[in-house]
């Protein structure tokens, strides 16, 4: 069943619970400070951690030795826990470690949910293990503290979290607790933004049920008042993308707004509207629509409100270089992206309308050598409309690509036949020439003439392209083999995944040359011949031209059986093993080389490094990336972790 349709779901993306769990596992391993909190003395002296939490961090360090090597912090420092009624004078140490045990998406398959919070349809569940400890001072330590002033009235009851420099009573022992937090929620596109909600939250563990109920009520308020609004604000509803970096000489001023679909049209015969995002079949699914928008201003100016201005970014990955065998890893499909055939057609039409090229070069060798300086655009009118078709055989077929050459300057090199004066036999001896008169030879160079020829508006060419695509892996040659993924990312030399065209099959239709080119070519040859004979008297030029048979003689030698230069040029250009074949090969090679599109570095950056907090990136390896094409859509799949 296709993931997209031809109306308002033009893009599709999904990630399954296996991929999310793997991503959270890697996040806990690479950024433990997001999951571990402690007071100053404990955070700066990890040897003082409560044993249970110290064991958890030791396991993380064992799984990721890079943490220690880089000196990244594993604990986020928090304020100490005030002792109430002391007016902020005294506080206690504590430590908390959260472990995302699992994520489960409808239907339930990963987490054994407690009866209080079942996982309903179109929802996802989160199970977090909470491991905490509060430092308990000994009575002897407390007795040595300076006494607090005794007043008639008790100090105000407050947590005094804003107290400055309280006296933290060090732990004599740890009061450790462990609980499991289960949270069920979802999201829905509502109005012009994504609304996040949750259906339930519960604690299970060592707490007394009454205390758990109290905590749950408190936590629900925190989630509803604090967490949900922040999540909603952070989820973008649309994003402007541009073509990114393009080959030199190619101009393509296009931009698109990729947005969550406001209304999901039925993908199948089922007319029931579908939620977006959708939590089903163990996946989170997002359905998007795409609209062409004006090209945004340069990146350093202020983007339109409400948009994510980052656009497409190939992360600096190069387009050149050979492919490499992809790394090993999971082969299950965790993430899926799909592009509808309709979107491919729309973008192709936009590309045809806006694409222009401007490039010099040369090709050919031997007797016929052709240099060119060209600029082109694609014809797109009522009589000639380029089309693109995704085919069920896994290929993309481009038809009616009619190239209009805004500038096509050729240089045709001509080799004039060698001309000899003299060499007559003076004496014959028994049927053989014993001695000949002196002789001189001319036009022995190759080529003798280089004829510049402007074919702007004279030559048109049509071509069709049949091409498939694939995902290819690229290993950065600048990266030392022993360099870690973290170092490679920081040093800007990561490996990556890129989209590549399979060697395209290009068919160029026979090229027509208009007859008016004949006179232009005759004149050009005459001019070049006169340049060649510069400094020679007119009578001598006439001798040379008589020997050559005039310009017509040169052309006859060049053209062979062709009736005219136009015919000859058309013949030459249309030879399958000549120019035409060369163009087809060049176009195929050009497409293959130029349309290598860097997609993402590997591992993918889930969280960027933060130099201020001195934390490294969170990287998630991507493996088993593959691209499939059918008549409905183009599908990209990959595995996380």
């Amino acid at each position: 069943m296709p993931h997209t349709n031809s109306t308002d779901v033009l893009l599709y993306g999904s990630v399954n619970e296996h991929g999310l769990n793997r991503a959270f596992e890697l996040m806990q391993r690479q950024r433990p400070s997001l999951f571990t909190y402690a007071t100053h003395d404990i955070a700066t002296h990890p040897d003082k951690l409560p044993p249970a939490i110290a064991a958890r961090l030791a396991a993380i360090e064992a799984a990721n030795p890079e943490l220690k090597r880089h000196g990244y912090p594993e604990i986020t420092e928090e304020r100490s826990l005030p002792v109430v009624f002391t007016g902020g004078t005294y506080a206690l140490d504590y430590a908390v470690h959260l472990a995302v045990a699992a994520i489960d998406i409808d239907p339930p398959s990963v987490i054994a949910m407690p009866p209080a919070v079942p996982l309903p349809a179109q929802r996802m569940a989160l199970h977090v293990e909470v491991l905490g400890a509060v430092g308990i001072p000994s009575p002897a330590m407390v007795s040595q503290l300076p006494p607090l002033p005794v007043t008639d009235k008790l100090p105000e009851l407050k947590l005094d979290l804003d107290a400055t420099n309280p006296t933290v009573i060090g732990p004599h022992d740890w009061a450790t607790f462990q609980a499991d937090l289960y949270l069920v929620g979802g999201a829905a596109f509502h109005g012009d933004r994504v609304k996040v909600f949750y259906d339930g939250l519960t604690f299970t563990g060592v707490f007394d049920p009454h205390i758990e109920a109290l905590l749950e009520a408190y936590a629900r308020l925190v989630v509803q008042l604090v967490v949900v609004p922040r999540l909603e604000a952070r989820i973008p509803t649309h994003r402007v993308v541009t073509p990114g970096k393009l080959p030199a000489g190619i101009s393509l001023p296009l931009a698109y707004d990729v947005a969550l679909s406001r209304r999901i049209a039925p993908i199948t015969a089922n007319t029931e509207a579908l939620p977006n995002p959708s939590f089903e079949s163990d996946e989170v699914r997002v359905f998007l629509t795409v609209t062409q928008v004006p090209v945004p201003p340069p990146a350093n100016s202020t983007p339109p409100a409400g948009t994510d201005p980052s656009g497409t970014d190939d992360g600096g990955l190069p387009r050149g270089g050979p492919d490499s065998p992809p790394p090993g890893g999971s082969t299950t499909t965790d993430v899926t992206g799909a592009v509808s055939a309709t979107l491919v057609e729309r973008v192709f039409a936009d590309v045809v309308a806006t694409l222009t090229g401007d490039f010099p070069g040369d090709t050919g060798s031997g007797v016929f050598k052709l240099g060119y300086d060209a600029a082109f655009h694609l014809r797109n009118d009522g009589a000639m409309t380029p089309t693109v078709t995704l085919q069920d055989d896994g290929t993309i077929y481009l038809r009616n690509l009619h190239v209009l050459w805004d500038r096509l300057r050729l240089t045709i090199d001509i080799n004039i036949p060698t001309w000899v004066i003299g060499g007559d036999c003076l004496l014959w001896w028994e049927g053989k020439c014993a001695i000949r008169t002196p002789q001189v030879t001319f036009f022995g160079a190759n080529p003798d003439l280089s004829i510049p020829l402007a074919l702007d508006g004279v030559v048109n060419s049509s071509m069709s392209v049949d091409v498939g695509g694939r995902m290819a892996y690229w290993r950065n040659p600048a990266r030392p083999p022993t360099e870690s993924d973290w170092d490679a990312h920081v040093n800007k030399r990561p490996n990556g995944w890129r989209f590549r065209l399979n060697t395209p099959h290009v068919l160029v239709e026979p090229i027509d040359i208009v007859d008016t080119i004949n006179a232009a070519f005759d004149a050009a040859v005459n001019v070049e011949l006169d340049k060649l004979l510069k400094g020679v008297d007119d009578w001598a030029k006439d001798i040379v031209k008589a020997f050559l048979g005039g310009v017509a003689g040169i052309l006859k030698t060049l053209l062979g059986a062709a009736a005219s230069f136009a015919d000859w040029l058309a013949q030459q250009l249309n030879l399958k093993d000549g120019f035409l074949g060369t163009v087809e090969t060049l176009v195929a090679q050009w497409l293959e080389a130029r349309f290598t599109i860097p997609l993402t570095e590997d591992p993918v950056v889930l969280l960027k490094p933060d130099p201020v907090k001195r934390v490294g990136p969170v990287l998630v390896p991507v493996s088993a990336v593959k691209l499939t094409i059918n008549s409905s859509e183009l599908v990209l799949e990959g595995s996380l972790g």
Partner: protein
Amino acid sequence: MDKLESLFSHIDADSGLLSGLSAVVHTFDEAGSFHLGILEHDEQVATSLLEVQHAEPPAGESDAAPVARGHHADLASLRRPRVGAPKRMTVDRGAPVLFNAASGEAPHAVVVRRAATSPAGLVGQPLGAGAADEVEPAPGPAAFDSRALGPGDIFSTVLLRPGTYALANTLGAGSGIVTVDYPVITPGVPYRPPGPVTIECNEDGFAPPQVGLKPCQGIVVHINTRARITVTLTAADDGPTRGATTAS
């Protein structure tokens, strides 16, 4: 196109002043060592050693006549031999030797005399740069002088400039007229000149005395008397659109 410019700068022809496409042919009937002097404006500017050897008959044909293998001597090249090349040449007795000055700007003449001392032991051996200078010419008449051709010699040239030329034997009484047609450009048909016209230079003049040549057609003069052949442009033909002009 310097080569073309150089070629078309040679208008007149003189057997005593060889240049361009002009050449003389002489056959040496006696074997031996000869002193070859190269002259520019009647002044000797270089010498070389000419060895005339008995020609070997073909293998297994001891009674057969020697093969008439012609030789070519470019005076300009002999005057300025390549570094390391011997300043000598060897030809077969009875074989025609063609002298010209194809690669030189200034016209040259050549005078060949018997060597005063035969450089025995040097034949077949490479000579140093100064070896030919050690050979002195013997007194007496020259064996060959391009300024004074004799019976059996040949003068050939190709007159490139269209027009009318005066033909003369400056050492005899002969004179004549040579006309060279203006080229006709036939579109698509490359022009190829016919073979050379041959005339005789006799004691009483040229036979025939008037010759018509097609463009770039050669003329060959067989010498039957003492002669120095000159061909001098008297009226240039600048073609049907530009008309004829009288040469100064």
